């Protein structure tokens, strides 16, 4: 198991953000009933184990003027997806890049890349950049723009 019960408690206590106080880890520690040092140590360990990707200010890109948020989906050969995915995943305008399963015939796409831009036109230019990078490996693709955010919260962990 990558995390234990205390790690889980730390995640639950901080998933909506660290408390904005002078010594945030003291407050988290008091909530859980462990020491400040242990909280910090465990957060460090979760970062090292790559459970936590990063800690810091988490911007809300939608509120920052990125109004065109497109989920681009691509059908590429499975045997080449790792190298292609890594190329797309390093593009500066791509915030997420995942392989996901296909469900034929209705869902032929196996590579997902989220793009963000101020306008749809700019986003479509980003799509063109990806299409060019993929070349003939791209058998078909589509772009799904979000028209409405219906719910958005951080990670929610319920206690077991």
């Amino acid at each position, binding site marked *: 198991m*990558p*995390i234990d019960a205390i790690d889980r408690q730390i*995640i639950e206590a*901080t*998933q*909506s*953000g*660290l408390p*904005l*106080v*002078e010594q945030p*880890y003291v407050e988290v520690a008091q909530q859980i009933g462990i020491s*400040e040092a242990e909280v*910090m140590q465990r*957060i460090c360990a979760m970062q090292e184990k*790559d*459970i*936590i*990707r*990063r*800690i*810091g*200010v*988490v*911007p*809300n*890109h939608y*509120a*920052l*003027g990125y109004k065109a948020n497109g*989920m681009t989906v691509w059908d590429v050969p499975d045997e080449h997806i790792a190298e292609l995915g*890594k190329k797309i*995943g390093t593009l*500066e*305008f791509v*915030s997420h*890049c*995942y392989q*996901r*399963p296909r*469900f034929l015939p*209705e*869902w032929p796409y196996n590579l*997902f890349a989220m793009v*963000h831009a*101020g306008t749809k036109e700019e986003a479509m230019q980003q799509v063109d950049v990806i299409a060019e990078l993929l070349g003939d490996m791209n058998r078909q693709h589509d772009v*799904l*723009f*979000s*028209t*409405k955010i*219906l*719910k958005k*919260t*951080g*990670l*929610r*962990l*319920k206690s*077991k």
Partner: protein
Amino acid sequence: MAHHIIQYGTEGTESTVEQRLLNDFQHDFPLSPTPFADMAETLGITEDEVLELLKCKQDEGVISRVGAVFKPNRVGASTLAAMAVEDEKLQQVAEQVSAFESINHNYQREHRFNLWFVITAPDKSALENEIKAIESKTGYTILNLPMVADYHIDLGFDIKWT
């Protein structure tokens, strides 16, 4: 965007500090007992000002939080789910879906599959149960698209000032 250059000096010192506060600490957040005091020192403002600014930006929704970004599927189990819902039923079904606590993102998108959401659960079997519960509540089949591999190199998301 990842290496966006901030325009300094055009709007006075205050906006510059604000921009640096939001841009520079997406990754290099000090893991110290007093992170906000450390940020204040770097920025040349007081700790109270840092806390005040962060609270204000959080209230405005410009930042969603100051904290950890977790790797998907390292804590519990999650999946990306989609449904194809008739337009006239979309609002109602979206509300039914959002009402589940296991849903943390729910977007309407322009496609035959027009409702997209992320389901999270403590483990795989709980996730399967949740999928079934949402399907039976809404009466729609879920297109279940769990992550197979993650190719993103996270450089953070630089803030564009318009």
